[in-house]
């Protein structure tokens, strides 16, 4: 008798069952060695510090260092840029020349000294390869090393180079001995940084092992870790069982719905912080009926902001005040964003002659993104009350993006995606998402407003010299986008990390996403 159908149907149920694999109970734990284990839910596609542009930053940030480090603002304190490999820096009055003084006594893992030539070489290598996030240096026209401790950058336009140098991508400084190495060498598990840990072993798709670098300039904290193990586990259910079972010390990416139970677990700390990641839907401003601002405003008034935060993130997300999230300079806590108000939406639609018009709209979003799907389903229910049918079309990201880039006349009505900055500046959000473009790349609502373009371009050139004025201009520009309802600003994602309670010294830094600076920690 053929039982295959039976087994196969049982397998669908079994897939939902967590199973604790023992692949992760590694033979690593030698006596006395202190190991920090991260259950990391994604792989590390590129460990080349010049081209890395993904979660690989989690590894690189412990092996390499940049000139500066960005510390996000909190409610009490403004954001700051802290010294790292650079001890101090200054800019000329026109913002076109930046001089960095390097920290003395810094060694690379291969024993060579950190010099101005090494910094120049690293950044020039990144610019020459021109992959990943190398564009952050686009304004740099020259790098000079007048003496071993001084690096001078000349720029074509004023830019906040201290912030750019703090980027989590494309800003790592590597040893002169590694300058001529290719991408394959780095991805074979070789490292050449100044960071507190050396890259010891890399098994793609499986794990990365780092060991403490004895010659680290910053030293090690009392009770600090000797070894860092990134265990790549791409299943949230398994990540959760690892952190609950003590096989991992840190993880993220667990479903919001499960966090309540974890919060009640005394062995775990669930840290909820704002992230720089914001979710929004761009309206197709090039096609009727969404080419009319009032229709777009009506749709935004029908969006169930609070319900999506409750249902989609278990209340841990926060209202998006425009597109620039909390913690980034240029965030506008008093932004005039709409609240859910179906009566006001209905009135606006009536004004536009679209009362119960049977309007049909298509929203595209990324397949299997639960939060986007939830936002769409709840919005759809509200719009149905206004006589609008919203079709939710999940697509593979590439397909979703291609459709949107091709021709606004045949594209989606609403394009849903997340955005987070490469380096911390409001210009990154406003330029990519709303600056008019000949052929769209990320401005997938095709918004075009010359006054807006001029304002943010001018603000960008001011941000190297007069940040306060630049900030005011960015806020003004963002209010234009809100008034025009170029997009519906759904929510700011929370940055949630789960750590074992016995880990001390942990601080989230939203500027670097899901990165742990392990040298700050001890047990």
């Amino acid at each position, binding site marked *: 008798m053929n039982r295959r*159908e039976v087994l196969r149907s049982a397998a669908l149920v079994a897939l939902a069952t967590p199973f604790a694999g023992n692949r992760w109970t590694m033979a690593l734990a030698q006596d006395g060695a202190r190991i920090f284990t991260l259950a990391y839910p994604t792989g590390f596609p590129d460990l080349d510090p010049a081209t890395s542009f993904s979660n690989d930053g989690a590894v690189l940030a412990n092996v390499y260092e940049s000139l500066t480090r960005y510390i996000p603002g909190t409610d009490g304190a403004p954001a700051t840029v802290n010294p790292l490999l650079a001890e101090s820096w200054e800019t000329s009055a026109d913002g076109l020349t930046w001089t960095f003084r390097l920290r003395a006594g810094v060694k690379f893992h291969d024993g060579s000294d950190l010099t101005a030539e090494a910094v120049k070489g690293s950044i020039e290598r990144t610019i020459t390869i021109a992959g990943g996030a190398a564009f952050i240096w686009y304004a740099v026209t020259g790098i000079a090393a007048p003496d071993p401790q001084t690096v001078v950058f000349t720029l074509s336009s004023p830019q906040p180079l201290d912030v750019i140098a703090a980027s989590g991508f494309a800003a790592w400084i590597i040893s002169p001995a590694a300058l001529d190495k290719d991408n394959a060498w780095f991805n074979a598990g070789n490292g050449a940084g100044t960071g507190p840990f050396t890259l010891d072993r890399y098994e793609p798709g499986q794990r990365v092992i780092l060991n403490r670098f004895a010659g680290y300039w910053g030293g090690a904290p009392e009770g600090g870790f000797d070894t860092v193990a990134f265990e790549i586990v791409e299943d949230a259910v398994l990540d959760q*069982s690892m952190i609950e079972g003590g096989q991992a010390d840190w993880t993220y990416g*667990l*479903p919001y719905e499960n966090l309540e139970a974890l919060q009640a677990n005394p062995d775990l700390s669930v840290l909820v912080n704002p992230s720089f990641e914001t979710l929004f839907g761009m309206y197709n401003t090039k096609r009727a009926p969404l080419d009319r601002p009032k229709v777009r405003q009506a749709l935004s008034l029908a969006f169930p902001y609070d319900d999506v935060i409750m*249902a989609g993130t278990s209340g841990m997300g926060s209202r998006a005040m425009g597109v620039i999230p909390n913690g980034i300079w240029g965030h506008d806590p008093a932004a005039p964003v709409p609240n859910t108000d179906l009566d006001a939406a209905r009135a606006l639609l009536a004004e536009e002659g679209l009362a119960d018009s049977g309007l049909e709209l298509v929203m595209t979003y990324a397949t299997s993104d639960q939060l986007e799907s939830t936002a769409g389903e709840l919005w759809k229910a509200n719009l149905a009350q206004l006589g609008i049918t919203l079709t939710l079309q999940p697509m593979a990201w590439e397909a979703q993006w291609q459709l949107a880039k091709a021709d606004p006349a045949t594209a989606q009505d609403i394009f849903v995606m997340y955005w987070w900055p490469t380096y911390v500046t409001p210009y990154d959000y406003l330029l990519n998402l709303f600056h008019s473009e000949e052929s769209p790349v990320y401005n997938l609502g095709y918004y075009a407003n010359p006054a807006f373009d001029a304002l943010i371009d001018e603000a960008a050139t001011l941000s190297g010299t007069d940040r306060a004025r630049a900030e005011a201009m960015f806020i003004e520009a963002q209010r234009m986008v809100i008034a025009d309802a170029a997009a519906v600003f759904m929510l700011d994602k929370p940055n949630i990390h789960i750590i074992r309670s016995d880990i001390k010294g942990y601080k989230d830094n939203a500027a670097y996403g899901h990165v742990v600076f392990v040298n700050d920690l001890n047990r």
Partner: protein
Amino acid sequence: MSVLRRLGLGGSLGLAVILTFALLAVAAPLLAPYPGQGMGDPNVTAKLTPPSAEFWLGTDHLGRDLLSRVIYGTRVSMSAGLMIVAVSLLVGLPVGLLAGYFGGWVDEALMRVTDVFLAFPALLLAVLMAAALGPGLLNSIVAVSVTWWPWYARMARAEVLVLRGQPYVEAARLMGVSHPRILIRHILPGAARPLLVQAALDFGPALLTASALSFLGLGVLPPTADWGKMVDEGRKFFPDRWWVSTAPGVAIFLLALAFSVLGDALRGREGGKRDDPS
């Protein structure tokens, strides 16, 4: 009662389960406690409620009653299974008839085409097709049917090869009856019967494959209720909220098991013709 005696206890139970699900599918708006939620209306205040008197099977991540969702999901699963089998039959049967009857280069050409499709693992090909076409119920039905029809073509051809040499067919040919007439009047009835039995047996595997596509995010568009998709939605909460995946998972299991048991009962009577295409 003679039908039930012929099916035996297992087959009868299977038939009963299938008829029950069919009733649920047809009368979903009357039987579901919350028809609106069954069709997708969110109810966020009751998010992830465990099974209770109010929600017999609990609620999902948008607070929708899972019993209603499962009942509405029956419609998708049953119609997906039916459509897949019907489309495959409509394509596979004529192809097999032509190949078997005319033989020669027609046979070669058509059978090589089926070989191309059969060369891929069925589920993998379905996943590739569904990914290329994009999510949607119709697309997933097309995707699975593409992997399904060659089996029917092969089977129809084998039947025709036997029937073609039968004296009554040769007699018809000698009397000058036209090819289409011979095919439709004299061969089709004989060839179709085992295919129809096989199609009935394939119903279960077809709906399982469709559920698998949904589970992978390649099936229906939200907020339509679909068992495979519901299992996927609940999968991540499983350690703490077991009921979200369990309800649709058990439904898939029961219906597929019922088809399998009924199929065994039928196959026992017909004599095993071939293995199923999965």
